[in-house]
């Protein structure tokens, strides 16, 4: 009846997961109850859960990412604690079967359920605004994508309560992840969760590629799109091509595990090298899926806070697209030590280095964007400079790893761990924190506290270096990754410093929460009434903060690369806004519960597959399909916003803008 699911699945004998599970359950219950007492459920249901508004969906993605960041960080600090305790004679507090789950979950969660939703969240929130349009191409599908992603996150976290997570590392290499070596439910949790969220990701990619290619404001030609939109386009093109490869690789592994196929097994003619290739054909482009939008955020931040256009815009676009293409030609550098031969290794090594060229160009372009500017040292600029200093070192160690003879002595070592955390924290996380600070007022109408923001920055910056520089050293000493126990007592001081670094990052995460709560509490003093708190240059700053559901009463006419900046300068010079346009009623997509219901059935189906409860799996599939059919038969997908309402809101915005214009004119 319940397949493999028995009472043994609940970790009664393991205090850490048991207590964590109870605390999480109680916390979720308490928050749910509190929201119910406050009477906020209808608001949440109508304005967020069922919303097809790209801004709301973007916010939900980022909330999911921040929640998962806490989970992923809890894993990180447990690993650091174990490695600073389990040295020499001590075995630490985590046995291997638990430690191995933790590092696997850490990697999986941080990449798939922190970095990805964070990046996709920004693309959701920002891209349609920057393109000067009202929504993405497929608003309902957008909502479905989010909920499928959340469904994957739910299943990964469920493994804490019921059963176990994979103990194979975040890429689940076979044959270790095959049934012969990992018979438990852990790898199945991993596979099913990633398959479900992977569907969401591919749908996102379809959505954004279509949006950027087909839906832009009048006059917004390709070479007038803000760089963030370009990087979003590149990133989604990579997603569209790379994620199906991941889906296929994971599906093959599922066939091996569930139906006794032999794609990657040791026997029956299987070959595990095939998986290694497939997973990295996805895995390396994945790095660029994350880092390209990060580069986009830095470009926006650099231009805005330097009070200058981005230096070398065309160069930047070209560099982005070069990375987009070359990112597919480098995957083999993840296994130079497989013995593929000198020619192959050299070609892939050089291809990997070639990515360093456009990346280097970008660094210089940000540098020259600041040159001749009036740099305002706000939180996002801190992250930009922190990134530029950190990332060049990460780039250096990356190029070293791309040289096969050097990779031969640092492959898979703590040097590698330090390298990829340097580019992912220094590159991606810093950008996400910069973007969070930068676009927060646009989303909620008030700014985040600057002092606490800087404290968070310093925690990340100092914490990161303390946590990962020691790992470079230990890599030089011959330290490899994923060690539940350290034999060599002389590593202790470095591991203790690394632990301290993780603690400081933890303080930064706590301060992020404090900053958010404090900023909400003092929001009346930090209102963004103009819609343009940073003296911005791109179209998202043209509308109010938060923007109306339809973003723009009339789609803006774009002239030149910096659509909003040009318009603002003209207004300041002429001391008047453009003539009032002829307002029209606006057609907007209606809310739909499709996404959340599909994701519910997908979660049920996934859960059932993990535990071999076949009747429930079939029920889940039927449920998901039924809601899809129901949605397809709906006639009403849009509602009309009457012209009076549009005009009223637009006039209010013009009044605010005029006031703002007077303030600027008087101050200059």
């Amino acid at each position: 009846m319940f397949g493999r699911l028995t009472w043994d699945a609940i970790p009664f004998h393991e205090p850490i997961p048991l207590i964590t599970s109870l605390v999480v359950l109680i916390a979720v219950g308490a928050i749910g109850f509190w929201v119910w007492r406050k009477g906020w459920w209808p608001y949440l249901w109508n304005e967020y859960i069922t919303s097809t508004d790209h801004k709301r969906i973007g916010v939900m993605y980022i909330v999911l990412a921040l929640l998962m960041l806490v989970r992923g960080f809890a894993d990180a600090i447990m690993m650091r604690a174990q490695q600073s305790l389990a040295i020499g004679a001590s075995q630490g507090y985590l046995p291997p079967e638990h430690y191995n789950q933790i590092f696997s979950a850490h990697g999986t969660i941080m990449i798939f359920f922190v970095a990805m939703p964070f990046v996709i969240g920004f693309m959701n929130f920002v891209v349609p605004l920057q393109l000067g349009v009202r929504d993405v191409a497929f608003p309902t599908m957008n909502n479905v994508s989010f909920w499928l992603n959340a469904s994957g996150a739910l299943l990964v976290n469920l493994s804490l309560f019921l059963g176990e997570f994979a103990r194979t590392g975040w890429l689940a290499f076979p044959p270790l992840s095959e049934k012969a070596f990992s018979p438990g439910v852990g790898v199945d949790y991993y596979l099913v969760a990633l398959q479900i969220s992977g569907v969401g990701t591919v749908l996102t990619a379809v959505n954004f590629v279509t949006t950027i290619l087909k839906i832009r404001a009048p006059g917004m030609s390709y070479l007038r799109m803000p760089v963030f939109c370009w990087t979003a386009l590149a990133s989604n093109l990579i997603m569209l091509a790379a994620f199906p490869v991941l889906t296929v690789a994971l599906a093959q592994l599922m066939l091996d595990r569930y139906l006794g196929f032999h794609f990657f097994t040791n026997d029956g003619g299987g070959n595990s090298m095939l998986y290694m290739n497939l997973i990295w054909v996805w895995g390396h482009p994945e790095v660029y899926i994350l880092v390209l939008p990060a580069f986009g955020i830095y470009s926006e931040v650099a231009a805005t806070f330097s009070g200058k256009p981005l230096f070398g815009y065309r160069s930047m676009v070209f560099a982005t697209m070069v990375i987009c293409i070359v990112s597919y030609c480098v995957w083999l550098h993840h296994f130079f030590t497989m013995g593929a031969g000198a020619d192959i290794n050299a070609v892939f090594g050089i291809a990997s280095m070639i990515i360093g060229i456009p990346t280097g160009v970008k660094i210089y372009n940000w540098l020259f964007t600041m040159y001749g500017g009036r740099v305002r040292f706000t939180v996002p600029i801190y992250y930009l400079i922190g990134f530029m200093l950190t990332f060049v070192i990460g780039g250096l160690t990356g190029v070293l790893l791309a040289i096969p003879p050097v990779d031969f002595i640092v492959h898979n070592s703590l040097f590698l761990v330090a390298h990829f955390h340097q580019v992912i924290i220094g590159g991606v996380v810093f950008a996400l924190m910069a973007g969070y600070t930068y676009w927060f007022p646009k989303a909620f109408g008030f700014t985040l506290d600057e002092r606490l923001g800087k404290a968070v920055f310093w925690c990340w910056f100092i914490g990161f270096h303390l946590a990962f520089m020691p790992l470079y050293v230990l890599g030089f000493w011959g330290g490899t990754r994923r060690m539940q126990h350290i034999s060599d007592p002389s590593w202790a001081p470095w591991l203790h410093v690394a632990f301290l670094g993780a603690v400081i990052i933890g303080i930064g995460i706590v301060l992020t929460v404090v900053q958010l709560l404090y900023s909400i509490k003092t929001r009346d003093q930090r209102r963004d009434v103009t819609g343009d708190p940073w003296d911005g240059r791109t179209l998202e700053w043209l509308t109010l903060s938060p923007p109306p559901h339809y973003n723009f009463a009339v789609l803006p006419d774009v002239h030149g690369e910096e659509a909003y900046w040009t318009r603002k300068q003209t207004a300041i010079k002429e001391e008047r806004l453009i003539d009032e346009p002829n307002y029209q009623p606006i057609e907007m997509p209606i809310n739909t519960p499709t996404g959340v219901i599909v994701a519910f059935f997908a979660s049920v189906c996934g859960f059932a597959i993990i535990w071999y409860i076949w009747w429930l799996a079939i029920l889940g599939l039927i449920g998901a399909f039924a809601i899809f059919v129901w949605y397809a038969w709906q006639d009403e997908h849009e509602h009309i916003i009457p012209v009076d309402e549009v005009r009223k809101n637009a006039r209010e915005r013009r009044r605010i803008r005029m006031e703002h214009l007077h303030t600027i004119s008087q101050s200059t």
Partner: protein
Amino acid sequence: MGLFLFVWGSPRHLGNGGLVNARGGHGHLMRRVAVSGLVYTLAGCNRGILDPIGPVAAAEKQIMINSTAIMLAIIIPTMLATVAIAWWFRRGNKKATYLPDWEYSGAVEMVVWGIPILTIMLLGGITWIGSHDLEPSRPLKSDKPPLKVEVVSLDWKWLFIYPDQGIATVNQLVVPAGTPVSYRLTSATVWNVFWVPQMGTMIYAMPRMTTRLNLQADRLGTFDGLSAHFSGDGFPGMQFKVQSMPADQFAMWAQGARGQGQVLDGRGYAELSKPSSYVKPMIYGSVAPGLFDAVVANRTPPNPVPAQQHNEPATPAGA
């Protein structure tokens, strides 16, 4: 697979070969702290990949240092310029010139594309040459014939077979100093990476596949080796010692080992294959011929049978 089957031996304290052993110091705490501190400092500049003991490791370290130097020559000025430019062009600085529309300069573009391209061309050359010179399967130049060693990774220990000597060791690799060693590697279970940081190149040991590696240790002493690819619960205990001894001493060692100790036939191999970790070094005085190839072909019988039956046809039995 029995997850709790493997033996929890006491984790060995791996001191640094050739250096003072910190654990030898008796006496009260302060003295021990002082001694460990000293060892730790010494060890810091004399170990791992920074302290190569053979030609391969030395060449790889050299490439790493050269490439780092080339890149630092670009990166350090860039980092300084980042801080300097950001600070000089801060909003409050009245002396800085504001160029609100400066967004393009052909000359600057040329330089910012030129610098990375030239750097990567240089490093690309190093990569091409280095990849070919240090290709793991390429035999090392030497007037001595290479010693053959066959490496099998098991759950969770290393088996080293000396086919010409007819002996085998577990978690202990004995090599003649100054003589090239030609390795063939495979895995009897999941993937592992054979790595002796001070000898250089690491390489995958993969089931049903053979990889090749050529290394040489010139220095005498005892060095650390490990698996550098996660392979399951006993993974951290998958460490071994490399003993590099003079060639004549090696010959004596091999001679002395032959016929001594246990026999690595089908039965012995089946016993050894059982999951165990932190396994103490052992020696097998005789080895069934063709054992390595049998492991590669997945022909090793699952049950203990005499070694003579190794050449039976391949069985598709589940791993």
